[in-house]
């Protein structure tokens, strides 16, 4: 979410476009105009946005559970996500393996990836690396996306 550096107004794409229409210039200025106060601030270049996003991702933070997905606890899974959606370093319990027609799921089970197992996602690039007990596995995106998990907080590591 971007906010105006001057008045703190939340900047939506729609609002910016509206504010810019009032300006006589033809664009190409790389400035964003706040619809509330008219203050013009430079647009963050894409590489900077990426850098910021990357730095934020590096910082360890507890897994956020979005309220829409239902946080109502109990023994019910909090949420069911493909393992690929998790951040590197997080721990999760496997709840389901998607059964594809080509039988790739058999390979996963043979490697010990079964519902109920607790898995740690060690890294995501260039390939996914998982740790289950004493076993470390490397998988590609396609196979990792077949593993559906329920995220665990960092306290409940195996």
């Amino acid at each position: 979410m971007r906010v105006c550096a001057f008045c703190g107004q939340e900047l939506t794409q729609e609002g910016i476009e509206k504010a810019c229409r009032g300006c006589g210039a033809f664009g190409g200025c790389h400035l964003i105009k706040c619809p509330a106060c008219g203050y013009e601030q430079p647009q963050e270049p894409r590489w900077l946005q990426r850098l910021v996003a990357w730095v934020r991702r590096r910082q360890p933070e507890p897994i956020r559970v979005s309220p829409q997905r239902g946080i109502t606890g109990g023994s019910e899974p909090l949420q069911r996500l493909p393992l690929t959606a998790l951040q590197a370093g997080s721990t999760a319990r496997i709840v389901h393996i998607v059964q594809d027609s080509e039988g790739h799921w058999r390979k996963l089970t043979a490697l010990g990836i079964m519902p109920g197992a607790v898995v740690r996602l060690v890294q995501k690039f260039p390939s996914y690396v998982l740790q289950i007990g004493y076993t470390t596995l490397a998988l590609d995106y396609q196979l990792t996306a077949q593993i559906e998990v329920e995220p665990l907080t960092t306290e409940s590591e195996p």
Partner: protein
Amino acid sequence: MSSSLTESVPLRYSPAIEQAIAEIASLLRGSYTLSERTLALLLLQNDAEIWEEVRLQETPTTLERIHAVCERLHQRSEPPLAWQIEQQRQQWSQQIAALALSRTTYDARRRTRADIIGRLCTNPWTGFPILAVVLYFGLYQFVGVFGAGTVVDWLENGLFGQYINPFMERLVRSLVPWGAIQELLVGEYGVWTLGVTYAIALILPIVTFFFLMFALLEDTGYLPRLAMLIDRAFKWLGLNGRAVIPIVLGFGCDTMATVVTRIQETRRERVLTTFLLTLAIPCSAQLGVVLALLAMHPKGLLIWAGVLVATFLLIGWLAAQVLPGNPAPFYMELPPMRLPRLSNVLLKTLARLHWYFLEVFPLFLLASVLIWIGQLTGLFDMAVRGLTPVVRALSLPSDAAVAFLFGFFRRDYGAAGLYKLSEQGLLTGNQLLIAAVVLTLFVPCVAQFLVTIKERGLRAALAMFVLALGIALLTGWMLAQTLDWLGVRV
């Protein structure tokens, strides 16, 4: 595992599955090597091989009844039966493990030194630099410079060139009166002077150092990590990380690497890898000679490597587009990093050398004899004359045609032929570069071609042969034109 342990925790499936097993087991009448229970389980999981065997031994009515039992269970099973069986087995193995193993609680955060090294090898930030260091020191410095340079020089020019070969020549010439036979044994391309000398003084040291390095890498557990790092890039070539093992092995010997493509899962991947091995991966013998050839021309070496990598990527990508199918998914266990055991490394190296030598040595001798026959009958000169226009088109001197003809016998024969030419000062830097590129991409050696026929079939092997030849000549021609046009001198 002691049998008492497995008996105390019997493997039992859910009641529905157990009942079906019992029903099928009671129906079976034939004599099998497997127990009836095992057979029933495999039949339930639709094992094609077992069904085939049961079909041969049982009556049609029995088969129908087995079918009915299977059908009934499958219809009632949710999730699928194979899945349930797998899951129950997994649970069973965990029960046994819990009884048999005593362990201190495992803490994933506490790391041993091996863990840390392992992590460094898989982390992209440190993994790729480590890969570069491994390739530079392991492959280039150890195999290329030391093995193919220093040791080969000492053996070929020193031991063989100064002592053994002159002695053999004197011996043969004093014992054998016929000129043709003298030529066969100790002539320019003689069985001893070419075949034995190349095999022992040139190829043997290079492959020894390569196999030693490869065995070391294997035993440390580095190769699966390499596969994992490379997987994404190889997906682009229609392959997956598993292909890294035959490809890296190809830098040692493409013939052996072609056999190793068996570890890949689909025919599509095997064909792709075999083709890339045929075309763009120079074997250690060839690599050694090319490195020695271009050692005086660092710019040329860079261009050579650049052209090779570009061809590898471009042709790999194109081939992946042309062949139907999708890349197979990549999965691999990363074993813990270990300090290799010297005895094991040496044993493996010796075993591979033994295999390699037995396979290659006769071919060297055969090649010498063929060249001798070719020279006696004039076929050789005819072939050289036939190749001359091609060589001219690549702006190379006609003497290089001989080197190309040798290239058909063994990849490094050709390169070694060039080495001779360059020693005599017959080639400019540019010509050396072009010749090195063409010979590297050139057709597979006799051994590799034969193995390719065995593994991939005659049609595929011939297609690869023709394609590699065409691509090699085209690339060489384009490189010659480009260098000329840009006025580059290496």
